[in-house]
């Protein structure tokens, strides 16, 4: 018996060694990937080391790392990077927390009531992002906006607040709109994960007289950790690239107070037509996105284990 196993393994090893590193069957996929993903990435990297302005029809000049050196000293780039981090991690963190709380609060609502509440809570997720942006933009208006009107009527403020026109308030105001639109995603996901917790576990905790907090902290949250982590990472990547909401609400202003990397790249590429420099910013942005994607892949692998 032992000898048989040894013989089988000895036969299997050379066969494994003979397996080609590249299966010909994946070649079409690789070709498509190379055209759709590889070419733009490589071309962006090539552009990032050139002085290439779209308005100048003469051939681009190779400038080496000059665009990257300029980037290091570019205060708008650094502010955009900081704004991107605040916008992305702030929005995702708060939306995840909000989604979690809403899911826990509505967990035990049954029947038609639950369906109505769930539909209501999910509605913002169904509203197109540009509509969300314009909706909030008009709600935030200094003159005639409903938020100021309500706050003035309630006597909370004496003068209208310039929500989108204050360098201090604009970014948080845009984040509120983003959180409003994103929280239902987390609510949906957490609700699904909560319903997947085995009843035996919940029953055992009840038998052990676990209180509400104990149940949430020791039983439910450990089950929710992985789904929350993966969805948060997915949302971080998605928010890192968010253009529509910010552009429609503030166009990156006032000043550069809501300018994120994607807004900055857009302005460089399509207002100044500086494709070389915009590509350098794009490469840095791509590297950061790849790091986030790597984290996401790791989290996925962890969950499988």
């Amino acid at each position: 018996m032992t000898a048989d196993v040894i013989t089988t393994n000895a036969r299997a090893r050379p066969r494994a060694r003979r397996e080609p590193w590249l299966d010909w069957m994946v070649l079409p996929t690789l070709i498509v990937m190379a055209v759709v993903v590889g070419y733009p990435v490589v071309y962006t990297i090539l552009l990032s080391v050139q002085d290439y302005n779209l308005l100048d029809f003469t051939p681009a000049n190779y400038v080496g790392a000059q665009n990257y050196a300029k980037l290091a000293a570019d205060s708008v780039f650094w502010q955009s990077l900081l704004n991107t981090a605040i916008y992305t991690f702030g929005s995702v963190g708060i939306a995840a927390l909000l989604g979690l709380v809403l899911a826990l609060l509505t967990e035990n609502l049954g029947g038609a009531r639950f369906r109505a509440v769930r539909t209501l809570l999910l509605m913002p997720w169904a509203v197109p992002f540009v509509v969300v942006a314009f909706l909030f933009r008009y709600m935030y208006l200094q003159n005639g906006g409903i938020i100021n009107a309500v706050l003035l009527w309630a006597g909370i403020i004496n003068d209208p607040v310039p929500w989108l026109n204050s360098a201090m308030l604009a970014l948080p105001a845009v984040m509120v709109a983003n959180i409003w639109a994103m929280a239902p995603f987390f609510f949906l996901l957490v609700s699904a994960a909560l319903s997947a917790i085995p009843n035996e576990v919940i029953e055992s905790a009840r038998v052990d007289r676990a209180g509400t907090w104990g149940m949430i902290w020791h039983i439910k949250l450990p089950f929710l950790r992985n789904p929350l982590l993966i969805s948060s990472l997915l949302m971080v990547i998605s928010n890192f690239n968010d253009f529509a909401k910010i552009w429609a609400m503030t166009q990156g202003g006032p000043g550069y107070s809501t300018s994120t990397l994607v807004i900055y790249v857009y302005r460089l590429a399509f207002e100044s037509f500086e494709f070389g420099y915009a590509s350098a910013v794009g490469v840095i942005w791509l590297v950061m996105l790849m790091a986030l994607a790597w984290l996401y892949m790791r989290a996925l692998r962890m969950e499988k284990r």
Partner: protein
Amino acid sequence: MIRNRKSVLKLLAAVSVAGIAAGMAVTASAQEKITITFANWAAAEGTTKPGIEKVIADFEAANPDIDIVSEAISFSEIARQLVLRARSGNPPDVAQIAGNDTVLLGSTGALEPLDSYVSDELAANLKSGADAGLRDKDGSLFAFPWNQSPAGFWYNKKIMEQAGLDPENPPRTIDELNEALAAIKSSQPDVIPLAIDTTNRPFALSSNWPWMQSFGAVPVGEGATGAESEEMKAYLNWMREIAQAGYIDPGRRIGEFRPLAAQGNVAFIWDQVLLKGVMQAASGMSDEEFYETWGVTTLPVGGGKATTFEGGHQLIMFSASKNKEAAWKFIEYLATSPDTIANYTTSVNSSLPSIKSTGNAELDEVLSAPVFKAFSEEIIPTLAPQPYGPEFAAAATAVMAGVQEAVTGTKPIDEIAASIQQQLPQ
């Protein structure tokens, strides 16, 4: 049976020959017909769409051998799309363009020089200065002036009267303006005392440029004193003061103020000649009511001089056009025909033609209306060309971001000016 079969075959052959002949005739006719693509935002905007569609239909009726394919592209997108299409070798034949975008397109070298198409008669009929800024370094005309639409300082006489101000004497200096703004704010807190565009886009810099010049500031271009000059700081300080006093509503595009002005909620507005048409369309005001309520004059001055900017539209032809003669015929029709001037330029677009004489008595009467007269005689003489070009586009982001910081933040003006200067193209 056989005879029948032969008859059927003969009939089929006859039908085939007739079909081929008809097909060839259609093809020949299609080949003779020239197609001109016309990229424009006039067809993308509700107010101007019916007018431009009528003008195109009239042109096609008058020129049965030319087909116009109108490509509607929004105002804010058209420059980007035209640059990208020119780069990829797929530009339209003719395009509508304005402001800095005209010079940007001109700098690409993808435009057809138009001097050889302009007849002496037409050149003599062009208004003085209508082609200012539309010639390259060699003096070659790269865009043809379609219409003129400079900005004027519009004042609401009724609001001024309610504030205890003389409605026939609009403010002429920045000091007088400050006093008027204070009086309006205290008497009518719900009214926006002054409407100016403080968004971050090249158009906003064009629109704010005369205000800067009013203080003597020239941040970029020929004779520039930079963003850290005392004049520029005085302008930024004034913007901050009027914002903090609640005299302006920052962040709105000028177009967003127009409906509010039409409702009587704006006292002063720095806007183009087209404002009259927009306000009348929005409120249904008659000419008489309009003139009772609104007047227009030159910009109040600080330490500098009163200037304005040309917000009119130009027409360009791409060198890649295969039908240049037909394209020029269309450009000339748009800029000079009484049909276009009546149905588009002075009506839905509410602007002035770029030619002196229309050759049409009715049109001349329309052009002698008080608003058009005030623009022609009082405001157009203050037109000052702006340093348009790729650098202006890059400067626009830096300068307008600084203006927004001054208007909405608390950062010291000196720091804002230094930050603008750092961002300006070197």
